[in-house]
């Protein structure tokens, strides 16, 4: 697919002509634009290369070609720590040796931000996420839903330009799934993070996303607003 990006000033994330080759596996000319505060879904079947795309956006995998902009900054040559992209993997990867509070503050400390500056923002996140009573606990003592909330909060705490979610609702019990889905909606309404969610689940995209890009066999099939599908 040829890139046909709109290039609006309000675009927060622009991925242009991303081409990934890994042995026999390839993804060609992936193009995505996400407006500031958008909730974009990247949908593809299992084994279609979602992980590779995600790793390329974070900076863990070097794509063959293509450009990635975060705001005004071209980031494809930058290491992950300079991209301002927070990532929530499917298994959440909460640091087991740190308690919830330390997990949440990890990104703020790693970026040498002042804790005072973020106090009010993190406090409101904790309130929305309803995890104030969990701050001293370690991840092993949290339920699946609580872990998910902590992982989301940890990713949002340093105010990233892009929040990257990988299959955020898969593998959850129906009750927890509903809870997290509502939480993601509330989070998005309250804090307006720009979100790219990589998933295989169309239902998730219809429930949460405002736009979706579907790719099959290594190339983009279509990109639409979710309500137009």
């Amino acid at each position, binding site marked *: 697919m040829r890139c046909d990006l709109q290039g609006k000033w309000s675009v927060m994330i622009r991925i242009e002509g991303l081409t990934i080759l890994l042995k026999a596996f390839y993804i060609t000319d992936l193009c995505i634009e996400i407006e500031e505060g958008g909730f974009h879904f990247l949908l593809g079947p299992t084994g279609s290369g979602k992980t590779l795309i995600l*790793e390329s956006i*974070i*900076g*863990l995998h070097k794509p063959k070609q293509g450009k990635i902009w975060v705001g005004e900054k071209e980031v494809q040559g930058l*290491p*992950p*720590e300079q*991209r301002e*992209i*927070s*990532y*929530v*993997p499917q*298994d959440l*990867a909460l*640091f*087991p*040796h740190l308690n919830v509070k330390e997990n949440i503050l*990890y*990104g703020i400390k*790693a*970026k040498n931000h002042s804790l005072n500056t973020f106090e009010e923002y993190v406090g409101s996140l904790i309130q929305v996420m309803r995890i104030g009573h969990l701050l001293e606990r*370690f*991840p*092993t*003592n949290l339920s699946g839903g609580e872990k998910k909330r902590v992982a989301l909060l*940890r*990713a949002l705490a*340093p105010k990233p330009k892009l929040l*990257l979610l990988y299959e955020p609702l898969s593998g959850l019990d129906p009750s927890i799934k509903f809870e997290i889905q509502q939480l993601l909606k509330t989070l998005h309404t309250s804090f307006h993070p720009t979100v790219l969610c990589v998933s295989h689940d169309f239902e998730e995209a219809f429930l949460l996303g405002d736009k979706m890009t579907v790719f099959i066999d290594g190339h983009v099939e279509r990109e639409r607003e979710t309500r137009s599908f």
Partner: protein
Amino acid sequence: MTFRYTIIGAAIGIFIFYFGLLASLLFSASLQGFWESLTHPSTLFSIRLSLMAATLSTFLAVLIGLPAAYALSRFQFRGKQIVDVFLEIPIIMSPIALGASFLVFFNTSLGEAIQNQGIFFVFEFPGVILAQFATIAGLATLLMKASLDEISPRFEAVARSLGSSPWQAFYRITLPLSFRGLLASVILSWAKAAGEFGATVTLAGAMPGKTETMPIAIFTALASANIEKAVVLILILVFLGLVALYAVRFTGKMVRYD
């Protein structure tokens, strides 16, 4: 039930075999003889030398082995498989052959050039360190790699996306998470270095008061029919080994995150 009793009997049989062997040492000499041998200056020197050399060689093995283990655990690079195989050389190679290889090496022009810089290895204390290092470096690297392999690289990926440099992600996340395994690797490597004989005796010789570590002192004591000294040193080595093994087990229960 017969099956259960048979296999438990086999486990107890192995225990009795080793325990009996060690217990027999306790009845081989008088208490007076034990004490005299233990406090003899040459015995104390061997103990001190062994502890010092094992600590130094383990330190060096960790210093080089930890970054090597991390590279092998996390990255793909050309020749990785070959490096991996070569790390097992000290395991499959006879320690005497390893020591002899060093003797041959230090007879080459490169080896002589190294010794001409003022550090002498052949029949000298640095030779003890080098022999022990050569014996344990590969093993230490493999053990540490196994510990690092158990920690998902996803933790580092998340830490880096949150703003940590690769080094910060390593020491703030991977290092504490793999600490138990790394500590156990260090302890086992140290115990192996303390008990090393073949490579050390070949490269550094069996020189009393200079390169005579505990295992070498056991050998020379037996050669001169000084059974009491040999038994004392064997018991000390066994004691150190048991403490090391207990410490390894203890590390498994030491850190809990709840």
